[in-house]
């Protein structure tokens, strides 16, 4: 039983692709898996062709219990369910602000779901707000897809600082490189320089058109093209993560 958040301060680093593919692999290996789409854009929900239920919104998410359970949807894959995102999530920080023990609310909502699911993935929106604090509090592992660029490395430092500030351990964060283009010198140099850092995984996800095309066929690439290099990269990453979690 564990909660894995897929998070980065920056957008467009491959968070949703990571959440969708890793949760699919987790379910395929036999673990009852729930993916919570926390990003108001609802890309993960879109990939699984699941629309946000009409009466579902931020308030229901924060109330938890039946309000959440009734809105979970089965995906096309056995063992993998999804809690869809709603557009109202864009104001989630305002809603959280009004609550007592606001930073623990998400953990409280997710706790009962751990009875039903072996693993919960959180596909997180990019920011460093009260929601992020909630996510870090709830998650056992924070998986950070990182494009090997100078700015990304800087944002990683910001993340570590923030974790420290809110009293969360730095080792909760597991960094891996995403959208890697080996032919770019900067990518190679940064990856090499960080290769031996603690909490940095050796597996990485290359920049591949098959991953981008997931928006067209609306399935995890690991399910649609299981023999593709993209699927192989996610499988290797998942193996690496599992080894780390043990």
């Amino acid at each position: 039983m564990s909660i894995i958040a897929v998070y980065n301060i920056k957008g467009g680093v491959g968070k949703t692709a990571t959440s969708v593919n890793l949760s699919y692999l987790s379910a395929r290996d036999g673990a009852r898996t729930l993916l919570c789409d926390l990003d108001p854009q609802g890309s993960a929900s879109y990939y699984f062709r699941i629309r946000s239920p009409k009466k579902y919104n931020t308030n229901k998410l924060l109330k938890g219990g039946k309000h959440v359970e009734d809105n979970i949807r089965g995906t096309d894959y056995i063992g993998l369910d999804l809690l869809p995102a709603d557009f109202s999530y864009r104001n989630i920080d305002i809603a959280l602000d009004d609550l007592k023990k606001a930073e623990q609310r998400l953990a409280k909502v997710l706790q009962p779901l751990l009875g039903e699911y072996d693993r919960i993935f959180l596909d997180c929106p990019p920011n460093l707000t009260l929601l992020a604090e909630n996510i870090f509090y709830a998650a056992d592992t924070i998986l950070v897809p990182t494009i090997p660029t100078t700015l990304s490395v800087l944002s990683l430092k910001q993340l570590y600082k923030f974790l420290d500030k809110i009293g969360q351990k730095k080792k909760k964060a597991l960094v891996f490189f995403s959208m890697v283009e080996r032919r770019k010198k900067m990518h190679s140099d940064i990856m090499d320089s960080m290769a031996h850092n603690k909490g940095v995984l050796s597996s990485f996800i290359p920049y591949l058109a098959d991953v981008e095309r997931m928006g067209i066929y609306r399935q995890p690439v690991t399910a649609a093209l299981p023999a593709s290099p993209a699927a192989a990269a996610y499988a290797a990453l998942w193996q690496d993560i599992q080894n780390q979690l043990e």
Partner: protein
Amino acid sequence: MLEKVTEVWNLTEEYSLEALVEKIEGTFSLQQDEEYKKHVTWYDTYDWRLYEQGYVCLATGSSWSLYSRDSGVLVKQVKGVPQKKAVFASAFVGTDLTTIFTKLLEVRALLPLQTAQYTLVTHRVLNKDEKTVVRFIVEQYAFEGTEEVRQLAYLMPVRGYRDEYQAVRQALAPFPSQSSCPLLIGLEAAAATTGRHPGDYSSKFNLSLDPDQVARSAVTSIYTQLAETMRVNVPGVIADLDSEFLHDLRVAIRRTRSGLTLIKKVLPEEVVARFKAEFKKLGSVTGPVRDLDVYLLSEEKYRKRLPACLQPGLTTFFTTLQQERQRQQKLLARELKSGRVESLLVTWEKHLQQEDKEPAQYADNPIVDVARKVIYRRYKRVMKDGQVITPGCPDEKLHELRIEGKKLRYAMEFFRSLFPKEEIETAIKQLKTLQNNLGDFNDLSVQREMLLHTLEKLKPGSRKNQEMAAALGGLMASLAHEQQMVRTGFEEIFRAFSHPDNVGLYNRLFKG
């Protein structure tokens, strides 16, 4: 299958996928996943030990799958065990099924019940976003040796798409449905094609009688059921599938003979005399193979009694027994194939069914009165015989008591349905404890005698015979020692049986 399926539709000939899709209210399309085909054979023991313990076993090639009967969930799967007309637990040694099969099957063999070509097709029902909202699964069994094809359908809901599930369910409403797991329906359908149904045979005598039923009609029910038990076991004895067929056949014969002796003046005297003789003859025909089975089944126990140096002689002994069994089995099979048993049973049943020209004295008495009388008489006899047994009395006294006890037990089992369940079961259980002691004592005597007999016939001279004689000697000493211990135990066991509480129970139940 992840979730337990509880509603299954039997798709009749009118079923077509296109028509079904049209019937679903709303805009849906269907997409078929890959078809899954395999050749399956159902296996269970003749007395349904797997089914009774909540399992269904299917074999495909040399791969065996054990499922939970009620949920359809796969419990264990093993590979590399060839299929045969009789597969014993020993075939699974070294696999994940060995523990469970050893425990459940004991000496019984798994027998192929029926074979079918099995096809599973999953259709995904898609909404306008082409999202799977419910899975529609069709399983088809084409049974071998028949024209029969069975098509079962069930739905696997997708969480959060309740309305869509109901829409498909509505479309299936015209088809007959069953609230059972598809795996179990498959087993029942497979059994039905061979004229059987799960749980249709048990070696336990279980017959429901009505206390007011007249004795003549009640004994007809008893003997008819026993005759049927004999009949269904004959093919298994001929094919020599496992030793229990013969055992059950012999028990049914013995019960019939006991009934004829115990339940007096209900059937006409000449009928009783004639069939007592006939069944005695049948009993003795089946004796030699069973006697040999008893030794062969205890080979392992015998081996444990002897040190390593005496083992080679034991091997020779068992080889000889095995050869003798083969010879006897041939003779027995020939006798059973002759049709004489079937014609005996037919004549017997005819006599049971027909009206007696001169009804016997108690024919029209209520069965419960007859039952009490029969049981109580036997009970008093057991008590009397048991009380005179002393540490110094000859072994024969214990043998006689065992025979009396057996008669009492059969009588109680014939009529168990006429008495309060809990009390009669307690009474039977008390007697069983006594019978186990006497049975062990008797088995040990018979075995010793048989060993002595073998020893006497051995020709001296050959090395093999010398080794065997040594082994037999060792066994006899070991058996004699155990027999003495069993006999010592008798006193306490009989004291428990004749405890005032137990005497009270028997009096309350059976004293007229």
